[in-house]
């Protein structure tokens, strides 16, 4: 795709019980949002290995969203707390190596929050669009390979 009609690629890694169902609700309610997001469904955000996020960037994602149940509402009691901790650390790490924090976002979206899902997706898409295409991963990766 040429520079002029570039569209950001967003990967959303979500849990099955809250956010995936919330996104279903947005659909059932015929709410509209930007078509840039591709959803990866996991049973729980606790299943998210930070390497998934890295892999998404490697495969050309310009932004990644992680979303699950609100604190206390996890279908599996505490998976989202593990996810939150990992995500916090991982975002700091990405920030440290020079990836803009806007590219890795986190939001709680419950099964009844179809409207919030729409707002979150539009928000993430706009924020990433403002940042432009993400080429940082390739740069970091080259450096890493060079070191080896």
């Amino acid at each position: 795709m040429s520079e002029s009609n570039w569209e950001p690629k967003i990967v959303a890694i979500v849990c099955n019980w809250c956010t995936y169902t919330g996104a279903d609700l947005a659909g059932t309610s015929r709410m509209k949002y930007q078509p840039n997001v591709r959803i990866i469904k996991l049973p729980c955000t606790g299943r998210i290995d930070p390497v998934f996020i890295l892999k998404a960037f490697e495969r050309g994602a310009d932004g990644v969203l992680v979303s699950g149940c609100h604190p206390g509402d996890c279908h599996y009691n505490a998976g989202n707390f593990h996810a939150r901790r990992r995500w916090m650390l991982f975002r700091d790490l990405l920030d440290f190596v020079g990836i803009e924090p806007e590219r890795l976002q986190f939001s709680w979206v419950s099964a009844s929050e179809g409207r919030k899902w729409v707002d979150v997706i539009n928000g993430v898409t706009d924020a990433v669009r403002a940042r432009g295409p993400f080429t940082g991963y390739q740069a970091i990766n080259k450096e890493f390979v060079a070191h080896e």
Partner: protein
Amino acid sequence: MKIGVYICYCGENIGRTVDCAAVAKACAELPGVVDSVDYKYMCSDPGQNIIKNAIREKGLQGVVVASCSPHMHEKTFRRACSDSGLNPFLCEIANLREHCSWVHEDVPAATRKAIDLVRMAVEKVKRNGELEPIRVPVTKRALVVGGGIAGIQAALDVANAGFEVVLVEKEPSIGGHMSQLSETFPTLDCSQCILTPRMVEVYQHPRIKLLSYSEVEKVEGFIGNFKVTIRRKARSVIEERCTGCGLCVQKCPTKKAPSEFEQGLAKRPAIYVPFPQAVPNKPVIDRNVCTHFRTGKCGICKKVCGRDAIDFEQQDQFVTEDIGAIIVATGYQLYSISKKPDDSAIKGYGEYGYGKYPDVIDGLQFERIASASGPSSGEIRRPSDQKEPKKVVFIQCVGSRDEAKGFTYCSKICCMYTAKHAMLYKHKVHDGEAYVFYMDIRAGGKMYEEFVRRAIEEDGVKYIRGRVSRIYPSGGKYIVKGEDTLAGEPIEIDADMVVLATAMIAQPNAQKLAQVLGVPYDGYGFYQEVHPKLRPVEVSTAGIFLAGACQSPKDIPEAVAMASAAASKALVLFGSDQLEREPTVAKVNEATCIGCFYCQKVCAYNAIEVKEIRDRKGNLVKTVASVNPGLCQGCGTCNATCPSKSIELLGYTDEQIFAEITALG
């Protein structure tokens, strides 16, 4: 690999925004795809036959159905696969409807996205393994949480079908809000007369174990195999010894506590039975009020009790019950319209003066005033001076349908109960005047509209369409200022009493209980059903069902119908000895496991066990983690935690997810 891709138009639902034929064409080119077909309704019989025939004729090793959300039809298509000999877990769904066609408008962009979604699913399904369902036994015993009319109905239905029920009620007596009502619309049946026989039936039923004054503390396990810990709050009365003679209640010198049952319109002693027909008819000591607990003196109740049933030392006790299905029937509370704390998002109705003016009351308080068992024995008397009010104003939608000060939803029952209140008032005070301020009259239901017409036409209740802006006292009366929007002019009524039809809202501890049970709830705190139309009594946690107003505002017939529905869902579960569980559980690779047991630390279900691996001579080689598939719920937190990548969540393995991400483009 031989993968088949089946793209559904869902009539026009997908086809309108996604070029399904183009998706089918593009997907036919994907590596491994040997069959790519688009069809109008994939879930229909002919649609499923396309898939079934292809599995048999083309020897498919994986199927991707691009259709609606997997929450809708994943089961349907998995069954289609297993019908023709393909392991059902070799079927993946690409969500083209809820996540694509319904939320986008641009056809080329939606079509591109659809192709991406299918490609991701194809890459995943190539790496899916054949899984066999896990079978677990079913404990045929139900827990009902909440002893209002919904909980009572559900408990009786399950028990009458021949299964044991544990009924937990947080108050000292079952009966709920229905026991407080005077008469019920639209038949004007006496509420207690129809309810109390049911309460007694619960108490005497050989298969119902009633735990009153108790709360659910902890829920472990899963459908068919819950372990529920219940806190039996200290009653300070030994239930087994107490005969319910009531002598202690009579003799208690502390008689100044506001009665919860009478909505604060009467006083009760420190040791009390909430109301005369309470079930169980055993008193409880309110330790915050009791002189003995406050000062260590008194103890009269203990002295007068002939059965030595008073136990001041009693502590909360915990009991554990094995349960197969849980029915949640925790009901509602009324929105308290008095002043709200400043940080509250809900502003309340300070201008109506509820809580400040004694004769501005809510609907439940009016029920007590109108009730034959109430503080004025059924005669209409206003709280401040016990005089008969000659002019009463009823205000509807206080807190309901009001985004600015209350809740956006309609509480559904207020139109009816206000008509009933006005009618009861007119029946008892013949020369009185009743005014109703309303926004709309919503009287959908059998004989409901007729009931409201009766209030207006036969009993002469004056209905005014409009809102009330302010209420203030003046010379023993209350000036109600409002607007008659049909006449287009302001209106002022000098009322003796004002009754506010306040919103039905979720119980104060609804969210806390939801978290204990693992039940999702909406923004108002009402419990969330799986599907608003087709699965209205189930929640996303299998084995838990909803009944009554804990799900949304409801009247009695609806709550009862829902309770019977929830009971029948529990009975469906009890109809089989074993149930199948999704085999998407964690599995340990014993060869690479280093036995660090990080997985055990993050597991919320105690599903990780320690396994010793020994050689032929019995020498310990190493200790590894092992998953108990009966306990594992398949969240996958262990999978993400394992440093040596030795534990995998079947169905969501690293390989599958990396393949999905790699397929992004």
